[in-house]
């Protein structure tokens, strides 16, 4: 069995698999090592929303390129990934929200995104069954959408194997060896050693622990987020509804009919936790049906939890570390799946050509981590 590669990717989620896909497409010999099974970490627990409405230029570009990928993913990956451009509608109930959205829209439009601030009347035209007294309007981008994280990842995996890459599941990296200041090999819990000059840490919520193996401290803190899905119903409305009110939530209807959604807990729930709480189980249906009362007629099927990997400023870390050849692609702050196509492509590009292809300061490990992504 081959134990030497050009690149070893640690983590079989969207980011790791996309990076491996783009590397193997460029004929780079790649091994993916996953500690459990593909998508078993954060990717398989995300709700599949894909948006481009962010507040900083590189993030907006990454999101737009990712949407371009999702649009033709069926052709690229050879399977239907359930991409559907239903849009995202951020609801503004306060003057502050309206200002924040309008400021972001300016930057988004300058970067070529088809987004605008629409009136409350227009919002109700798009989602007639919404009950939202006091709504001032919304930030609406019709080309945002949704895709199935499992299908996208299995599509990546299929192509990686076809391109000659290797995917090793049920193997946890427990040691990373360096020589001088260069990465040299990784050792798994089965005692196997794999060699490569480049190792990418795409371990999601476990990224910080992996960095500790080589004495690096990265500002990535996992926290629990819960999600819920209902039974399938006939199409009710199109866009993801994002309600930032204190008892708001965000949810949308999958192309396959289910309503799926989350809310961000306050205070946050730190740690790598995937247990589900009774509080969310009652609170989420209340919040969803507050905004869309007709949902009271729909049944909840399933409730689960996964981790967001948060950075202090709300932007990802995608960079080479101070150990030569040891990269980190983590701290996705809940946006890993939707960013994965473009992050993987740019990272693969950098590994091959030493060029990020975009201004990369937003994602550097050495940045100051000041400020906060306005559209979290």
């Amino acid at each position, binding site marked *: 069995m081959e134990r030497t590669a050009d690149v070893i990717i640690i983590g079989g989620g969207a980011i790791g698999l996309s990076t491996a896909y783009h590397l193997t497409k460029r004929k780079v010999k790649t091994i993916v090592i996953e500690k459990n*099974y*593909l*998508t*078993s970490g954060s990717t*398989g627990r995300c709700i599949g929303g894909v948006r481009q409405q962010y507040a900083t230029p590189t993030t907006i570009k990454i999101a737009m390129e990712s949407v371009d990928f999702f649009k033709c993913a069926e052709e690229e990956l050879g399977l239907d990934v359930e991409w559907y451009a239903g849009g995202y509608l951020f609801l503004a109930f306060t003057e502050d929200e309206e200002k924040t959205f309008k400021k972001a829209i300016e930057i988004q439009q300058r970067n070529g995104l088809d987004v605008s601030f629409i009136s409350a009347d227009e919002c109700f035209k798009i989602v007639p069954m919404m*009950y939202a007294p006091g709504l001032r309007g919304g930030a609406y981008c019709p080309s945002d959408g949704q895709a199935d994280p*499992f299908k996208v990842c*299995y599509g990546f995996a299929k192509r990686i194997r076809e391109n000659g890459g290797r995917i090793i599941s049920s193997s946890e990296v427990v040691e990373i060896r360096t020589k001088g200041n260069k990465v040299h090999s990784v050792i798994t819990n089965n005692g196997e050693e794999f060699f490569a000059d480049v190792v990418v840490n795409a371990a999601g919520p476990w990224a910080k622990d992996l960095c500790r193996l080589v004495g690096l401290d990265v500002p990535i803190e996992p926290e629990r987020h819960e999600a819920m899905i*209902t*039974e399938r119903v006939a199409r009710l409305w199109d866009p993801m509804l994002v309600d930032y009110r204190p008892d708001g939530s965000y949810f949308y209807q999958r192309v396959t009919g289910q309503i799926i959604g989350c809310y961000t807990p306050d205070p946050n729930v730190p740690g790598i936790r995937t247990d*589900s709480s009774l509080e969310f*189980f*009652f609170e989420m*249906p*209340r919040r*969803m*049906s507050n905004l869309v*009362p007709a*949902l*009271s*007629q*729909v*049944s*909840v*099927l*399933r*409730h*689960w939890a996964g981790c967001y990997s948060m950075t202090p400023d709300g932007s990802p870390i995608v960079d080479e570390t101070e150990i030569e050849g040891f990269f980190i692609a983590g701290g996705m702050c809940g946006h890993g799946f939707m960013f994965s196509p473009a992050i993987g492509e740019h990272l693969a590009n950098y590994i091959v050509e030493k060029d990020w292809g975009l201004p990369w300061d937003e994602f550097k490990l050495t940045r100051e981590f000041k400020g906060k992504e306005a559209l979290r």
Partner: protein
Amino acid sequence: MTEGKRIVCRCEDITYEEVVAAIEEGYTTLEEIKRALRCGMGTCQGRTCSRIITGIIARMKKIPPNEIKQITKRPPLRPIPIKALIGEKDGENR
């Protein structure tokens, strides 16, 4: 029965042949098959299909069914209407 029409998962319309193909492709655990084919994500949450798929894996992989790990059971145990969770009564106006 018609070839290719032997339904294993009634909620998501998944056939025996599709399950066999997924196992051959390397999705050999219930958790992986659930994610690849959605068996266990439908209305019954795997109560019907899990046993059948456990049997298929057991036969194909030649392992005793009781050694095959079952999928994580997630709340609720059965579908619950949102109106029941929020305490709304039938006919109540909102």
